Structure formats: structure tokens, C-alpha cells
């Protein structure tokens, strides 16, 4: 079985803060492997353990993004591919999915593509299904677990509102995975990190993957960012002294406004 995992290097958004003027403070914000992708990788490594699958990891970004590929190689992936080209800069999810699908076609054959459900810096959850669309292969998004693996099919647990479904999908297919709350992110040993230096890691340009330059970057992106601005700041509210009844009523009103209760 050949598995391709799409990985993204992201700024650790938990550590991103804003200046009062609405710009992002970028100093001291570490770059990490998108946590959802980390889980996707761990899932693939589990499949590798069971079936001896070959794992190829793919990322798009500047040369520093090779760090997440090296992390994946250290954790047990077999080959890494970095799409790195000025032509990719500014791509929205559509153009990103296009570029990644071009690379995937070149890496082919594959049985399974795994993606994290979303990246924490964009929160779109679109790139995965857009890749599936580009490749015209079946997809299941927001899976919490891969229950069973066979050479031709996969059984997964997928989240739906208020519950979950068990679904079987015919391969080749694309699955996006959500990360369980209690997931402990695996990290490689120093030895595995060192050994990963020797594993194959390729850097490809747009031309290398036969991508149409007009479909890449800002030019190839249907969406445009018209404006960026700080969210409405949380205001320090007034402190009220009311009777117990009125306090309770006010709190109920707030909860209603927040749609916690009807």
C-alpha cells in the first residue's frame, strides 16, 4: 500500500498575539507541524506497522518547511517531497490543492492520501477535499479514526453533527482526519532524527510537477483577501450590583444571546 500524507508547517497559533494596531506579532512564534497533520502521520505510521505500507510525505512551502518533512521521516515516513517555488506564493486553498494534486500525480501510484482535517493557521478544512476533487477520487472528511485497512478498502469512523458514522470507502481515496483530544504527539529520538538525514527528500518546483503557472499563486487563486483587521476587542464589561433575581435573569439573557439556551 502506498500512502501519501500532505503536511503543512504552520506558526503555532496558540502563541500568536496581536499588536494593538491589529498587526500580528511574529517574533518568537515557533513553526510547528500542523497538529492535525501530525495525527494523520501517526495514523499512517500505525497502518505501516500493520501492513508494511510505504509512506511518502508531501509539503508545500519555503525551504524551511523541509523541517516538517524531516520530522515525518524521523518518525518513520519513507520519502519526502517539498514543493518550493516562488510561483506557489500566495496560493489560496484552490491553488494549493491544484499544486499538491500535480505533485501527487507525479508521486503516483498511491492507494491512500491522508490529510489533517485543517491547518491551524487557516482553519479552512478545504485543501483536503479540494485535492480529492482535483484528482477525482472519493473522499471522507473529518474522520476520527481508521478502523480497518484492507488492500482495496478502508473502514473509517467519521464525525457528523451529534454523532458519528462508520463508512467503508473504496481505494484509492482521500481521508481527512481530526485529532482526538487525548492524542499524545509522538516525537522522534535523536538517533531517528539523525538517520532521517539520509532518507530521500526531494525539492520540486512548479515546473518539476508540470503545474500550469496560471493556476498557481495569487494569480491562480480565485479568492482575494480584501482586508485584514483585528477582531472586535473583548471589552471589559461593567460590573453590576443587582438583586439575586435580577442577576440570575441577566446571566440567563447573556446565555440566550450566546445561544447556549433558548
Amino acid at each position, binding site marked *: 500500500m502506498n500512502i501519501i500524507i500532505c503536511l503543512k508547517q504552520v506558526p503555532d497559533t496558540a502563541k500568536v498575539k496581536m499588536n494593538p494596531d491589529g498587526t500580528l506579532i511574529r517574533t518568537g512564534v515557533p513553526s510547528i507541524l500542523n497538529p492535525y497533520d501530525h495525527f494523520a502521520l501517526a495514523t499512517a505510521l500505525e497502518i505501516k506497522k500493520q501492513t508494511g505500507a510505504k509512506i511518502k510525505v508531501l509539503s508545500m512551502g519555503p525551504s524551511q518547511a523541509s*523541517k516538517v518533512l524531516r520530522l515525518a521521516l524521523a518518525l518513520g515516513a519513507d520519502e519526502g517531497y517539498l514543493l518550493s517555488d516562488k510561483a506557489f506564493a500566495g496560493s489560496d486553498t484552490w491553488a494549493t490543492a491544484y499544486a499538491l494534486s500535480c505533485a501527487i500525480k507525479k508521486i503516483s501510484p498511491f492507494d491512500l492520501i491522508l490529510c489533517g482535517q485543517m491547518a491551524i493557521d487557516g482553519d479552512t478544512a478545504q485543501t483536503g477535499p479540494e485535492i480529492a476533487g482535483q484528482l477525482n477520487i472519493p473522499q471522507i472528511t473529518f474522520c476520527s479514526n481508521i478502523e480497518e485497512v484492507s488492500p482495496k478498502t478502508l473502514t473509517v469512523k467519521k464525525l457528523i453533527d451529534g454523532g458519528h458514522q462508520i463508512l467503508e470507502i473504496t481505494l484509492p481515496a482521500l481521508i481527512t482526519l481530526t485529532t482526538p483530544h487525548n492524542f499524545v504527539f509522538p516525537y522522534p529520538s*535523536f538517533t531517528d532524527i539523525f538517520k*532521517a538525514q539520509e532518507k530521500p527528500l526531494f525539492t520540486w518546483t512548479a515546473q518539476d510537477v508540470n503545474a500550469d503557472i496560471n493556476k498557481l499563486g495569487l494569480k491562480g487563486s480565485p479568492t482575494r483577501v480584501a482586508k485584514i483587521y483585528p477582531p472586535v476587542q473583548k471589552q471589559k464589561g461593567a460590573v453590576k450590583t443587582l438583586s439575586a433575581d435580577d442577576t440570575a435573569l441577566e446571566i440567563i439573557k447573556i446565555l440566550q444571546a450566546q445561544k447556549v439556551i433558548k
Partner: protein
Amino acid sequence: MQKIDTVSRQLMLESLKHYAEQKLPFDFLRKSDAENYFSAEKVKEIYKTLGINLLLIPREYGGLASSTSDIYRICQALARIDLGIATAIFATFLGSDPINVGGTEEQKKYWFSKMARENLLVAYGATEADAGSDLIALKTRAEQIIKDGKITHYKINGSKMWISNGGIADLYTVLALAPGGPCWFLIPRDTKGFTQLKHEDKHGIRLANTAGLCFENVIVPAENLIGLKEGQGFLQAQAVFGYTRLMVAALALGAGQEAVENAIIYANNRVQAGSPLSHKQGYMHKLITPHYIKFEAARSFIDQIAKILDTNNYGQATEGAIAKYYASRAANAAADDAIEALGGFGYTKDFPVEKIKRDVKITCIYEGTSEIMEMTIYRGRWQEHLKTRGNFYLDKAKEISTDIYKDIGGKALSLGLNALNDILEECRLNRLTRHQHITLELGRLIASAEVAFAFIKQAQSGSVVEGCPFNLETIKTMARINAKNVALEIASSGAKLLNSALEKPTEKDLYISEIAKECCGIIKDMDSISSVLKDTFRK
């Protein structure tokens, strides 16, 4: 042979951080500190999971053969987790050093392979009750046992004190005096006649096991003598002093950074009179900012010396002493102020700064006290001063008086180095170094001067040290502030120092008024650094 590259180094540091977050949370460290106990198994778990013990072992024996530049970063990162645990791991590095330096190929093969395979905990047994930095007073003896005209064994008698991992190690490298002179022996824990004493009840680094060792007629095979040749022990020990002291500097740096960063995070959250403490100039300029500037200066110095050691392997004894002395004192002062920065909270064990303050004191003591460092620094540079007929610091002063150093305090520090040269010359002409008081103070001033020099060289190089969280502009500003502070410190301390030993005042003005003029703009620069610090360390 392939070396650990930048990406791998980053990944290793990240793995270490993940490990600590998952396995060594603060509550656990706090409890271990209170109980004065951290088991050998826990240290070994770190070895097994991460392979951190393989760093110093050569590739051909299953190790990673990492460079000094790798190891100092790991030490720094370990100290951020807990200086006691860092010490336990560092002791394993230290314990294997004599094999690296003096071992025969066969010894290396046997012992390194065993250490890699079995994740051995190693201890470095040099110190005795009456022999610390003065190893010459060594009392532990190794007698030759001769059979058929050949030395087959040694019989060791004596005792060691304050040995890190002393109570828990699997293997000990022990310094003893043989008939042919001092030498290192490899002694496994279970050797007959060898006992380990109780774990000390220490002020800090309570997670590091520290114990005395006792040798009563301990028989070790002659092949356990490192290098198979008597009398090499001191040389082997001294060869690595530059290296080991550099590592202590990195340990101090890590612990100090952790303390100050904790304080900054606190200051960002604690609102007083309408604004966070981190917005208050008085608070930041007194308790936080000066320390972090010194840390970045220390980082530059350590990094530069590590790079030299990566190409030369040994030596750099004076530089190692400067690094250790400077970083450990900076870290202690910073940890002390970090407690104050947290007010009452800082004084409780709920916050980590109190523990760091206790832990970090050790960096002023082990591998030679600060006073031994001052002496070493003074001796090393006094020789240079004499040898170069006073050009040692004048050359450096000249180097940074050019335009490219103009914006980073080049002129101020250049004046400071001229002043330092004048001070040394006055000491020479008036034979003032007969006062030990003077020699130690010279050591202090030299350390500040050389670190400041390294810092502005770094700022001028166009890039920051790998792992530094700041941009070049910030480093330049820090280097500028530091250069000015140090220059003024040399001139003012120097004036006092000379005159306090002289009958009538020195005629040298030590450029004091010129340097004072260079101090314009320090507060503005510090404001910008304070602002960067509060933005960089948030939670």
C-alpha cells in the same frame, strides 16, 4: 563523516521539549525537588526514549558524535527543564570525556559500545574533600599489582566527594594517583570494595544525585587504566576544561533564561495600576531587560567558542572560564531578580523561579568556583598581555573602532578596551598583581570585555546565533547597550581598582569622560528591548 545538520539539531531540541512537556511537568519536578529524589530509572528513560546519551559517543560505536555546537544547545535546553536532570546527563558526558581524550582505540570501542548499548549512567570522580580545583592534592591512590613482571591490576584506596550520579551510576571514571602519576580508571559500580555514600541534601539541583564514593582495596584490571599509561590524568582532565566549562556556561544560560522568561510572562499578565508590569519602565529596566541582554551576549560568546572547539577539539581554557564565569554570574543575578519580579508569588514554590534560583547557584561552583575562574582568566590573559607587549586588547580595540561597528557600540567598547589595556599596564608597571584582590577583579573585567567584544562581532556578522529568538536589529541594539555598559564598568571599576592599590592616583584617565559621552541613548535602546521581550515571551 556526516554531521548533525541544523534541521536535525532543531528537531532534537523539539523532541527534548516534547519529552519534558509529557514526562516532566513542573508539578512532578517540584515534588521531586521537595523529596530530594529523582531515580536512576528516570534518567535512563530519557536515555532510552531520546538517545541523548549517544551524543558524545563516536559514530562507529553506535553514537551520534555530535559537535560542541550541538551539545551546548542540548545542555542549555536541558537546564531549562531542570538543572538537576541536566547535571545528571551532563555527568554522563563528563564521565566519558577521559575515554574520548585519552582512551586507546580498543578501550573506546569496548566502553563506548557498552555505554551506547546499555544506556549506562556514568559518573566523573575527580573531586575529593581536600582536592577540588587543586587536584594536585589528590589523595586517592592506585597501587600496581604485578604478576610475572607485568602490571595486571591496580588496587585503589581513597574516597571522592560530591560526585554527580555518585549514588546511581553504572560506571565511574575515577582519578587516582598511581606510582607514575595521576590517572583515570574505569570502575564498574559492582566492583568489590567500592561503595557509594548517601545522596547529599543540597541547596539546589536536588534532582541530581550527588554522593561520595569510597574505595577500599578495590581491584581493577590494568586494562581499565585509561590510555594504558600512568601520569596522563591531569593532562587529560585539563584538555577538556575549556569544553566542560563552556557546557556549564550553557547550563547556566538555559536556567537563567527560563527564570527571566517566567518573570516576563508573569509581568505580561499581572496588571498593576491599570497596566501590566511588563509595560513599566522601572520594572523592566531593573529586573528584566539587563539580564536578558547579558544572556544574549553570553550566547554569542558561547557559540563562538563552541565553533572554535568544533575545529580544534581541545584548549580554549581561558575562554571556557570566561564563558562559565560570565554566564553563571549573569544567570544567578537574573534568577534572584526573577523572584523579586514575581513578588510574593516568586517567593513561593508554586512558581518555578524559586527553584531555579536555588539550582543555578551550582553553576558558580562546580567545574571550578567563580573565584577559580577569575584567577584562570586573569592568568591566561596576563600572559597574553605580556607576550604581546600590551597589544592584545589594543588590537581588539582597533578592530572594532572602524565604521562597521559604529552603530553597535564599537566606539564605546573600543575605548573600554583601551582602558583595559591601560589598567593592565598600570598593574604591570606598579606590580599591582601582587594583590590577589586585584587579580580577581581583573578577571572579572576581562570576562565582561571579551564577552562584549564577541557580542558586537556577532551583531556585525549579519546573522543571529541559531536558536536565538530575536532578529538582527534587536541583537544589534542589545550589543550596543552592552558595549556601553561594559566600557563604563571597565573605566570606573578600573579607576577605583588602581587607586585603591596605589599610593598616589594614577595619571591614566581611562577615557572615562569619553566613554560617559558614548552612553547617550541607552534608555531609549533599553525601552525598545523591553518592548521586544514582552512581545516575545507570552503565554
